[in-house]
């Protein structure tokens, strides 16, 4: 059962030009502060981590009357910054590996926004391989996502307007990043960096160039952005804090009871009916 790819195979046509120009811009910034960077580039910042909050997943639409037996849904798989910032600052390219029944199941996306649209009928696991820029990390990171086409609630009729959205929040953590990486991204919105002591002399990032890049690779105005989920840590933190409080109170009570028991081992305890 061959799958026909109707939509574009590579996400973001506009980013092909953007990708190369952003590279040269990075190169320019590199050349200006070359001496500095060469000295500090290979140094790693101990006990420092840089984290990149990401959201990855799929959005799938039923094709309705256009649906055929082997082509019932159109879907998009993507990875975006958690606040829709441009991940291109960290990620060089993303490789989406589809089910082998697709033509050329290995789809490479060279520039942000890192996404891929396809159509088909089946649900399967998609491998999302993140390849980072050379100063970030030379090891790739693989994410796994199950493509969901059919809604949980199977009772109602499918709608072509309301898609099935599955998104996962996570954070990519780089431990002991290189100084050059840190310097490059320290002011970028897509990245969380700790505050370092000012005694460390890091070359400043090329801010203006970054701005231009940002406009192209971010997903703030993405056509599918209306379906993006909101991930707020506040909710979860609240729940966790409340839960911890309860548990701690309970622990305290039990400790008191244990002390009582230890103090008076022969005490007769009345059996309460409750």
């Amino acid at each position, binding site marked *: 059962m061959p799958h026909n790819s109707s939509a574009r195979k590579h996400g973001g046509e506009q980013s092909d030009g953007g990708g190369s120009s952003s590279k040269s811009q990075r190169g320019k910034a*590199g050349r200006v502060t070359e001496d500095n*960077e060469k000295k500090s580039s290979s140094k790693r*910042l101990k006990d420092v981590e840089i984290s990149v909050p990401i959201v990855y997943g799929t959005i799938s639409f039923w094709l309705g009357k256009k649906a055929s037996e082997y082509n019932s849904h159109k879907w998009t798989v993507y990875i975006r910054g958690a606040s829709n910032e441009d991940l291109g600052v960290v990620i060089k390219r993303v490789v989406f590996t589809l089910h082998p029944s697709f033509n050329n199941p290995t789809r490479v996306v060279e520039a942000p926004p890192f996404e891929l649209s396809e159509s088909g009928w089946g649900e399967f696991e998609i491998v999302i391989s993140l390849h980072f820029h050379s100063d970030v990390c030379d*090891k790739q990171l693989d994410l796994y996502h199950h493509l969901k086409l059919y809604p949980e609630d199977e009772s109602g009729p499918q709608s072509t307007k309301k898609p099935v959205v599955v998104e996962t929040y996570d954070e990519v953590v780089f431990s002991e990043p290189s100084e050059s990486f840190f310097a490059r991204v320290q002011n970028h919105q897509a990245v969380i960096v700790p505050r370092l002591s000012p005694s460390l002399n890091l070359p400043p990032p090329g801010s203006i160039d970054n701005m231009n890049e940002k406009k192209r690779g971010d997903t703030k105005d993405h056509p599918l952005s209306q379906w993006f989920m909101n991930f707020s840590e506040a909710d979860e933190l609240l729940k966790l804090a409340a839960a911890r409080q309860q548990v701690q109170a309970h*622990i305290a*009570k039990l400790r008191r009871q244990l002390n009582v028991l230890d103090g008076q081992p022969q005490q007769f*305890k009345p059996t309460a009916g*409750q």
Partner: protein
Amino acid sequence: MDAKDILGLSKTSFSAPQEKKPRPQKDSQRKPDGISREVYALTGGLAPLMPSVDVSHLKRQSQPDNEKITWRWLPFTSSARTDNLQLYHWVRIVNDVPPTGDYSFAKYNKSVDIVKYTEEEYEKYLTDPVADRFPSSRTVEELKDRYYSVSREILLARAASSADVAGHPLVKEPYNVEQEIERKRALSMVLSQTKQQERKDAEVLAEAKRITESRMIDKGAEEAELHATSTVGAENAERAIVDVESVSPSSNNQLPTAVVAPPTATGDGTSTPSSLRLLRVYLRTDALDQMVQAASSSAGLRTVKRVEQTLQDLGVNVKPKVPTKSVCAEHLELRKEILTLLNLQKQLQNKEAEASSLRDNSYTDIPSTPKQRANRGVDQDRSFIPDSLSFGGERVGKRDQKRKAPGRFSEAPPSPPQSKRPRKFKASDG
């Protein structure tokens, strides 16, 4: 045939022709060339597939026509001997020219210069008040250390000035015990490496080579700065780093530790496991999973399940939906606290069971009074406390309760579940 002779059986006409026929055949079969029959039989009656000794080597190799070889019984001396003993041996003389030179085995007579010290010197420099009094078994390295340090001391003491002996190997490079122990340990590790380990190492080195090569290409193409090598796997991480760094052209300088604001909301147990840190890049959820596993390593599967049930009862996601750094830290702490809670509950239950067995009362009710008291104190509206303590309240009521006190039986099985009565979980859990 011989057996039959021994037994005195007559050779029947039946057997005779049999013997006659196979015998000539066997004889012709058996008769090998070049070696006697018995020796041939030693090989199991089969000829070896390949000659073990090249037959041509057995012939005389040097042609007697070029040279004249004689053997003479001659005396010789050896530099290895300190006496003047005169020994004789056969010498192969070629063309009447006797061989010259020292006895060929004299070079193996190695000797070690051992430092000899006097009693005076011993008392002055070498006495160690404690060590000399007690006999103890010592390792080879310790003995060596003692020997070398003693020699060194004597050398230094005898030298007119320290400059004289500075060139002596003992003074220049003193024996380093720990290094020697390490070195020997490393050697034995290398020696005892299994084939699998060798293969793994070869793979790691090959990968390191590939990485460095690709990096060389990248370096040329992109004008990218040099950066640290990546590690291959967590298990071999430490060895890999050593190997890879030796291969990689980009050597990492020792880093001055950056002064950094410590990561927020981390307790003692929440620092990233070193195996993950070595990976350089990882997902926070994976890090959390590892830390959760580490924290629950002492707990059994059932306990872990109960922790997760408790989480659910508390309205907390078993796997955080928004795994930020602080969320993960809080989550981990919560799990640990729940484990503590469960342990305390078990302790309490055990203590209670002990106490009640001492009292020697018969049980008609479930001895869950301490917990009942605890429950009453807590807000009953919250779904967490009363029923969830039973951890699956519907099921537990049917189970028997095991007693920790030996030989103790409750005449009545646990009373049928009543709506308001909290149930005890099995004491055997975890």
